[in-house]
């Protein structure tokens, strides 16, 4: 169990160990949904919400059900099961109470289920032996980090929409190049604190 204050983990998971820029997780929806700021913000908030809750749920399931029965090897299956069920639940809630956002996210909402960042955070939590509080701050921080990443990318993409780019680079091509440049920029934060 690392002796790091949960707030340090929270800060690090947003900036120095950002899921997108340092681990390159959740790239599929990051590239697909980062065209417009409002949609990107919606997906980012949904990912943050799902990440925060599923990390806590997976922590409880792992430590209170799987460890006592010696079933740690089932973590992949169980974590995926919990995430899938929770995203279904979120979809129902959004469809009912946040209709605008539900329509704006469209088919990307179910895709949160297969967003690697969500599973990645739960697995990192186990590998790094985090406590409950550390996991909670790690989950929320990673979600906010992912939100920051997709919002920054959507901001940049909305500015370069009219840019005279070579045809082959438009869309995902330039997005990946920008992601690489942003990842390098985020390395600048890594001197502040390291959690992995």
């Amino acid at each position: 169990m690392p002796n790091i204050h949960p707030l340090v983990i929270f800060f690090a998971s947003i900036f120095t160990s950002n899921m997108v820029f340092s681990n390159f997780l959740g790239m599929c929806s990051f590239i697909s949904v980062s065209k417009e700021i409002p949609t990107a913000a919606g997906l980012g908030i949904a990912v943050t919400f799902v990440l925060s809750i599923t990390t806590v749920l997976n922590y409880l399931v792992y430590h209170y059900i799987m460890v006592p029965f010696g079933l740690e090897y089932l973590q992949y299956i169980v974590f995926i099961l919990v995430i899938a069920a929770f995203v279904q639940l979120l979809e129902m809630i959004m469809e009912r109470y946040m209709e605008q956002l539900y329509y704006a996210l469209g088919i990307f909402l179910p895709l949160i289920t297969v967003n690697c960042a969500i599973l990645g955070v739960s697995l990192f939590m186990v590998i790094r032996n985090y406590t409950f509080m550390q996991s909670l701050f790690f989950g929320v921080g990673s979600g906010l980090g992912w939100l920051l990443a997709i919002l920054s990318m959507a901001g940049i993409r909305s500015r370069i929409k009219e840019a005279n780019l070579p045809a082959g680079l438009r869309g995902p091509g330039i997005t990946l190049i920008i992601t690489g440049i942003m990842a390098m920029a985020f390395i600048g934060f890594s001197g502040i604190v390291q959690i992995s």
Partner: protein
Amino acid sequence: METILITVAVITVIAAILALLLSLADKYIADYGDVELTINANEPLTVSAGNSLLSTLRDEKIFIPSACGGKGTCGYCKVKVLEGGGPILATEKSLVTAEEAANGVRLSCQLKVKNNIHIEIPEELFNVREFEAEVIGDDHVTKTIKRMRFKLPADLDFNFKPGQYVQLKAPPYEGSDEEVYRAYSIASSAGDHGHLELLIGYTGGIATTYVHQHLKQGDTVDINGPYGDFYYQDGDSDILLVAAGTGMAPIISILHHMRDNNIQRKARFFFGAKTPDDLFMTDELKQFEKDLYDFKYLPTLSRVTDDMAWDGDRGRVNVSIEKYVEDGGNYTAYLCGSPQMIDSIVESLHQKHIPDEAIFFDKF
């Protein structure tokens, strides 16, 4: 052994808790209560909200054609939504053109009914029925085409126009785990209310494999219909009927209709096939020649060789049209076959100065 049991038990308990949670959410969060569904400005129906428009209409016994069973891939289930449909969804955009979307056309399988909704559908869809039919005949008329005869439920009020089609449901079977609907033209008489006949050619697809390899006499199958705007039109013009393969089905139905109603119009049926083995129902067609006012069956074979017993016409159907159809005559044409065949026949009919308004076709 103990580890296996514990593993299974734990996974089962976790999955059960999650399933229970989702079921409760479905019951309480996804419960949209009752809403009003107005169809063609008729008296509104009260329906429970939360389901797709396609299944809501199905619950009301109004059947919209849907070959893919509501997966949003066939694009058949389009309806015009005048009010209460919400914004068009990403899953509809590939099948609904911008012009259709501007006119309120939506895919009923994707649109969820959550508010009061007002839609417009063709009146004839009110005649569509869904029923279980029993197979009472399954003869091979060629090596690859089966003539399926079904007995309809005694209390069913099923009416169709000669030329229309039904959808047959192929349930999951060994080798196919999905349920699919496929469209087949009706080959029987519209006057025979107790039975239905379909001509189903084997293509190796899910539904044709089901019919040819699994469905047998005594089995029941789900059918819904009738659908389609390809059907016999009243009038006094001469009639040209053109088909190939199982495209013969609606033509046979039209001929039944002409015989049942003693319609006195000149009719010529050009049937295109490859070899003599591909010709079928010849006896029935010869009988129609005797029974109808002025009807001739004119098959033409495209791949006949000198060693085959054949003294009829040779070549493609276009050649027969060139030979038998008089230029500028007063004709109404009914064509049923592959898109390529129909396009080429339409071209030949245009050369005979038969206008588009007099040409009806069913491409499959």
